[in-house]
């Protein structure tokens, strides 16, 4: 056991502690921290996808009134190289993808910086580029490992032989397009570097991560750098790893020798160098006996990476663990292209990798003449199919059953294209979800201090990117200290606080919360219930002794109703409903928003989102919010999230599993399955647009 906390504040429906500042707009995001006499940066980006810069003429830009500095690869300060090719900008004349940062103008105003950046004349020696992903490329390669440390390929039994002999079979290829994270707050860095050190206000998911990377990239001590991020306007993974914009801003700050430099990306630039989700091509084969029991399950995935830095999205993970099957095969293959580096986007691997198998399961249900829920129940594993370990808790079937009850699944027509209402084909669909419990022992440290005004100050370098961490961590600290919520003052978002893991992998509460619990327990052990002002204790999140004994994951089931216009193919989703089993819920109000928000992004993925590459030039053409469509208010009707009362004593002392990502995981598959049920048209290639029905 992990010494599960007795919940008092945990479980209470709490208004966000940062709420009043956010609704009035007075909470300072990165760009908004007052700095004296700031200068403004506008970048120069490559307009070819591959080649070398032969010349950059900057005289016109330098001559513009108000221009303070122009940086090019030929004169920029040197960086430590050989660590991360994505970050090593302005160090050589090579261009590896269109939109790459190749220069910067720093000026007295943003308008002058932008005008001057347009006056920089760049000459190139072009080389042929290749940005076309396909499953039949001859240069697909096998990465050594995939994101989050998983295996590249797995094989159990004889998946091909068992598939060949299966009574019922599905063999189909599914594709998901390129996606861009598009948090509402553009990536922003404000940096000042003077004799006292380097101070950075950054829009980041991890202040300590950024500090470590800046230190190693610039060859300076972490102790000379302070990174601050009390409020962050969303990230969805794109602010979880450092991107080149922070390096460019710090390079400029170094050149400006003490004067602060501000750089907020334009929305268009966010499609060039701050990460994205790779497109995927997934060939799924399911073989089952005549009762619908899987005898073979495989998913072979092709994705892209950049030539300069490998990122392998772990899209096979769901196929490895969702259902029992004695014969199983999975593989990841990468196409190295002249493209920006793909990276994390909400539920990397799990999200695109759940879409294909969960649509395939719907196809298998049809082939077996079974209800889709019943098919999933028949293939529920007793132990984790990937590791063979028992589950710390797994309530997928309960989520499916409870969701069916709440959604009104009973009486659903077995046949597709059965319901026509007022010119709309109407259907319903379901999909399963899972998201692993990630934890990073030793990654996070917290301090509890009793202050002169007899309050408890809890200090940890965590970041709230909108998740509700400000509030949930306060609730956890209150219970760990056995004091009222109101007696706790939380401090987060600053490298001046104890080191903390990045806000990613749905692991924030697990990592940070556990550190806080350890610190609170150490504090009470040392000082008892009557501490004196100034008393403090610091502790680090320990190893979890149970991770070797159990497979740990959150589960969920999403249900969708879809309507498709019989004449135009217009697709609507009037209802989404999710039921989740994700351990203990710390704050029902903010947790519901996490689930609903994830499902809403899943709806957006299902119906709208697709980054379109112009292969002639190598860039995303629909690079703004008018053309890269995300769900708007009118697209979203009823979205309900519910959860089961789940107690898991093995995951951590809070009993939490992580809720930030599971909401998106199965949603697109549920909508695709409902669209099939409505129309009889099986859409295997996202997004589900009107043309697919005509």
């Amino acid at each position, binding site marked *: 056991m992990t010494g599960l906390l007795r919940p008092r504040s945990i479980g209470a429906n709490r*208004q*966000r502690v*940062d*709420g*009043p*500042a*956010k*609704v*009035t*707009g*007075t*909470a*300072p*995001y990165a*760009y*908004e921290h*007052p700095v004296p006499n700031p200068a*403004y940066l506008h970048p120069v980006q490559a307009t070819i996808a591959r080649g070398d810069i032969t010349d950059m003429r900057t005289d016109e830009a330098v001559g513009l009134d108000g221009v303070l500095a122009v940086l090019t690869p030929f004169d920029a300060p040197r960086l430590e190289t050989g660590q991360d090719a994505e970050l090593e900008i302005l160090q050589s004349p090579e261009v590896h993808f269109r939109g790459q940062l190749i220069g910067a103008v720093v000026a007295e*105003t*943003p*308008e002058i910086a932008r005008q001057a950046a347009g006056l920089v004349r760049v000459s190139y020696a072009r080389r042929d580029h290749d940005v076309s992903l396909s499953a039949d490329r001859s240069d697909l390669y096998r990465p050594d490992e995939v994101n989050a440390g998983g295996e590249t390929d797995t094989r159990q039994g004889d998946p091909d032989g068992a598939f060949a002999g299966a009574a019922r079979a599905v063999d189909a290829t599914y594709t998901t397009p390129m996606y861009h994270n*598009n*948090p*509402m*707050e*553009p990536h922003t860095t404000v940096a000042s570097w003077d004799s006292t050190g380097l101070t950075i206000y950054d829009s980041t998911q991890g202040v300590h991560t950024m500090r470590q990377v800046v230190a190693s990239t610039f060859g300076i001590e972490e102790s000379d750098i302070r990174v601050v991020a009390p*409020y*962050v*306007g*969303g990230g*969805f993974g794109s602010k979880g790893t450092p991107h080149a914009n922070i390096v460019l801003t710090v390079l400029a700050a170094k050149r400006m020798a003490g004067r602060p430099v501000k750089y*907020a990306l334009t*929305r268009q630039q966010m499609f060039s160098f701050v990460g994205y989700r790779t497109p995927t091509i997934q060939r799924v084969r399911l073989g089952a006996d005549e009762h619908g029991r899987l005898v073979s399950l495989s998913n072979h995935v092709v994705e892209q990476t950049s030539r300069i830095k490998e990122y392998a999205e772990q899209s096979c993970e769901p196929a490895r663990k969702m259902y029992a099957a004695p014969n199983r095969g999975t593989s990841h293959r990468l196409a190295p292209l002249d493209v920006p580096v793909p990276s994390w986007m909400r539920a990397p691997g799990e999200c695109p990798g759940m879409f294909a198998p969960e649509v395939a399961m719907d196809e298998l249900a049809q082939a077996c003449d079974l209800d889709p829920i019943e098919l999933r129940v028949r293939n529920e594993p007793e132990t984790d199919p990937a590791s063979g370990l028992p589950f710390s808790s797994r309530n997928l079937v309960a989520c499916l059953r409870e969701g069916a009850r709440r959604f009104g699944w009973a009486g659903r027509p077995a046949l597709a294209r059965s319901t026509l209402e007022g010119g709309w084909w109407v259907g319903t669909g379901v999909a399963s979800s899972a998201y692993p419990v990630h934890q990073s022992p030793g990654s996070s440290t917290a301090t509890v201090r009793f202050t002169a005004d007899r309050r408890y100050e809890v200090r940890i370098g965590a970041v709230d*990117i*909108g*998740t*509700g961490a400000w509030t949930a961590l306060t609730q956890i600290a209150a219970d760990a200290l056995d004091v009222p919520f109101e007696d706790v003052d939380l401090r987060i978002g600053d490298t001046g606080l104890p080191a903390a893991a990045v806000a990613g992998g749905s692991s924030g509460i697990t990592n940070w919360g556990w550190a806080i619990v350890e610190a609170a327990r150490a504090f009470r052990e040392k000082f008892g219930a009557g501490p004196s002002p100034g008393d403090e204790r610091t502790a680090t999140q320990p190893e979890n002794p149970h991770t070797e004994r159990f497979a740990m994951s959150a589960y969920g089931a999403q249900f969708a109703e879809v309507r498709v216009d019989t004449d135009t193919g217009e697709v609507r989703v009037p209802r989404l409903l999710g039921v989740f089993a994700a351990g203990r819920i710390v704050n029902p*109000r*903010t947790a*519901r*928003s*996490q689930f*609903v*928000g994830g*499902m*809403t*992004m899943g709806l*957006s993925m299902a119906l709208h989102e697709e980054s379109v590459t112009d292969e002639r030039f190598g860039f995303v053409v629909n690079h*703004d*919010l*008018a053309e890269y469509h*995300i*769900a*708007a*208010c*009118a697209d*979203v*009707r*009823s*979205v309900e999230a519910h959860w089961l009362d789940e107690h898991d004593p093995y995951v951590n002392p809070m009993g939490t599993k992580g809720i930030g990502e599971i909401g998106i995981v199965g949603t697109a598959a549920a909508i695709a399955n409902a669209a099939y049920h409505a129309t009889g048209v099986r859409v295997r290639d996202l997004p589900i647009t009107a043309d697919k029905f005509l």
Partner: protein
Amino acid sequence: MADTESEITLLVDGVRRSLAVDNRVTLLDALRDRLGVTSPKKGCDHGQCGACTVLLDGRRVTTCLTFAVACDGAEVTTSAGLATDGRLHPLHQAFLDHDGFQCGYCTPGQICSAAGLLDEAGAGWPSAVTADVRTAPALDEEEIRERMSGNLCRCGAYVNIVAAISEVAAKAEPAP
């Protein structure tokens, strides 16, 4: 003063502010960069996301598509300015109660937009989903969703935003 600059005066959240602006400066950048008024946010700078929405002389506008020089003498109300004497506006409280946001970056724009739509509907203005444009529209969820679709929220708080605005709209309507 250069001939590409202009002297303007704005009434921002009740405070008179005079400044010289480059004629290229948007109202959004004038507020954020020149005046330190950062309640309106920059999300796209192209009028596509709504995060920069304020009330300009009482009407909701995207300040990133508005030149500051064209606003001389105008009254600007941001979400911060909707709070009076330290008391939150009913829309602020409804967004808190319904958790109508997560990261908070689109939120001041959502709230200004909501304040604008309440006035527009109150004045009888129809929307694209108003069935009968001859009668005053009732602010049901369908109307609110349509009228709020210029304000994007990537965290996906729409259902809570609609619930929050519905609550305030219901209280604002005279009893039948």
